[in-house]
């Protein structure tokens, strides 16, 4: 069923609740068979966007198309879209099997087909033995699986998942992440996955949309989002990052030469479609910088203030000339970094392509 049309297209959608704008002009295209993640802090409008796509609410303005067809005014029960709710919303007066079969029953499928499909779904989420249980007798992880099976059973074109893993403990969450990814690959259904957990987004997604304050700030694949954040919020929200204030003194194609307030000059990559002049912010990820001896060639110099051991790596906090702090991360080896002492004069070198200019 491949088609060039996006599974979901959201165009200039605004959603207001009274004076407050939960969504403030959102546009995004989600491709078929894609694992697409909406990532952002609590209250940024993720749930609101999902609710508009599911049809529980209507946009104040803008439009939403499903496979090219405008679905404004189409009630939720007419949309080939299913939802895994944040609180699961399993029906307490039905068994596990009845919950899973509910969608098919409402579609008017024959009994034998429903039974077969429920069995198939129970096997898919590995819940065969609990089919006659009441949902209130299930653990969080089991409820999550039932919610997933219930939403997948009617074979929707698009599956919406609203922070489905946030209620689970760490170990179970890791396990379910893998399982979700497997299900998405096996079923080929377009997943729109909501999370506020950046690590979850990076490990699971084909593409990520980073949201803040009712807007989508940047869309891209995990690598792109991590390596080339275009705005301060995106850079800060995903992973850790050092911000360096500076002045653009020259532009050469896709790179700019920036004089840093902390001393020295760097060549930094430019964000798409931006040609900054004057003041600019350069970012460098902690693991994209290396410590050098004070006499070696380097991009930055400063005084080592703190050494924090993290097991797999060590964080080095360096105070720069402009009094700003720069953190770099070194992977630990068996020999360790025992020779590093706070107070030492150090130099920092950036790995090639590590420095990037932000849009704002």
């Amino acid at each position, binding site marked *: 069923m491949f088609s060039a049309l996006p599974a979901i297209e959201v165009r200039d959608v605004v959603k207001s609740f009274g004076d407050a704008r939960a969504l403030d002009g959102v546009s995004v295209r989600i491709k078929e068979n894609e694992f697409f993640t909406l990532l952002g802090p609590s209250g940024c409008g993720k749930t609101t966007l999902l609710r508009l796509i599911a049809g*529980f609410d209507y946009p104040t303005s803008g439009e939403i198309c499903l496979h090219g067809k405008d679905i404004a005014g189409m009630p*939720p*029960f007419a949309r080939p879209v299913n*939802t895994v*709710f944040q609180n699961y919303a399993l029906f307490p007066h039905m068994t596990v099997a009845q919950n899973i079969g509910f969608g098919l029953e*409402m*579609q008017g499928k024959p009994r034998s087909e429903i039974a077969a499909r429920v069995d198939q779904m129970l096997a898919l989420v590995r819940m065969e033995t609990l089919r006659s249980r*009441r949902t209130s007798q299930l653990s969080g992880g089991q409820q999550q699986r039932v919610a997933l099976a219930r939403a997948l059973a009617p074979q929707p074109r698009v599956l919406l998942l609203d922070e489905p893993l946030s209620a689970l403990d760490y170990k179970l969450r890791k396990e379910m992440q893998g399982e979700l990814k497997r299900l998405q690959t096996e079923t080929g259904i377009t997943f729109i996955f909501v999370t506020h957990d950046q690590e979850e987004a990076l490990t699971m997604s084909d593409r990520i949309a980073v949201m803040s304050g009712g807007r989508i700030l940047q869309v891209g694949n995990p690598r792109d989002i991590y390596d080339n954040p275009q705005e301060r919020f995106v850079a800060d929200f995903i992973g850790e990052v050092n911000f360096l204030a500076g002045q653009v003194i020259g532009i050469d194609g896709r790179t700019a030469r920036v004089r840093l307030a902390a001393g020295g000059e760097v060549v930094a990559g430019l964000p798409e479609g931006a040609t900054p002049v004057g003041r600019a912010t350069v970012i460098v990820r902690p693991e994209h910088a290396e410590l050098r001896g004070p006499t070696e060639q380097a991009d930055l110099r400063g005084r080592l203030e703190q050494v924090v051991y993290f097991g797999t790596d060590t964080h080095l906090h360096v105070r720069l000339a402009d009094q700003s702090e720069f953190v770099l991360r070194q992977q630990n080896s068996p020999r360790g970094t025992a020779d590093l002492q706070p107070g030492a004069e150090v130099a920092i070198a950036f790995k090639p392509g590590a420095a990037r200019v932000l849009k704002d």
Partner: protein
Amino acid sequence: MSQAQEIAEEMARRSVRTRWWLSAPALAVVFLFAIAPLAVIVLYSFMAKGDYGDVKYWQFSLDGWFSVFFERGLFDDSIGIAQAHVSILWRSVKLALITTVVTLLIGFPTAYFIAIRPPSQRDFWLFLITIPFWTNLLIRTFAIQEVFRNEGVLNTVLMWSGLIREPLKIMFTDLGIFLGMAYVYLPLMVLPIYASLEKFDFRFAEAASDLYANNRNVLWRIIIPMTRPAIIAGCILVFIPALGAYVTPRLLGGGKNLMLGNLIELQFGQGRNWPLGAALSLTLTGVVMLALLVYVRAASKEGRSHG
């Protein structure tokens, strides 16, 4: 067993033995207001009737209970089923059932309507629903008469608007009784259902509509099953008093068709047959307990289904 242990256990035993005195006031109330009156009625139902009302004390007789179900022929000693009582009982049960159904049909949508108002407006609607409770039942029923009678408000308006030529005959008909009863008992149906719907998490309804349930299926498969205990409670709250109602049927029905409540009242008044009245009251209690049994079974089934 050590001595300390023995002492501890003896103290525990003693405290259990003495503790029940603490509930003596509650037990006294239950005895005084629930068990004692019932016992009096049971006793009266087994005594011979006095010539001018009251009973002949300590003169055992089954006549009261006998005449609940049977009657003697006028001219001979033949015994037949008390047709009048059976039909009155049946009519009362029918009236109570219809009242329950009518209040449910009106009450559920009303409760639903209030529950989906913005929270700030709900109290206002609840206030409107409970207004009938503020007035004495008798006055309320006279007010309904004023609306329903041939020259009453309803007929005047309908005839003035040209919708009807002849006044609708509602007063002194079964329809009048049903409407009046439904009006009187509606709040008892609305309040428990509202309390349940107000707490209902409408995300379940969204989840169902997400799974292709249209509005009708959301109502019948999700909302009604999940509020069933409240619906049953409302039905019981309406059915029980409706079964024994006598003011409303009497005033709106014109006393043509006796209800169980009227029949009982009659025995203690003109009928001067207190044992029969007592036996009839107990029969009514029996019917109510039967209804409660149905409720308890339905509720416990609900409890089980929720795990």
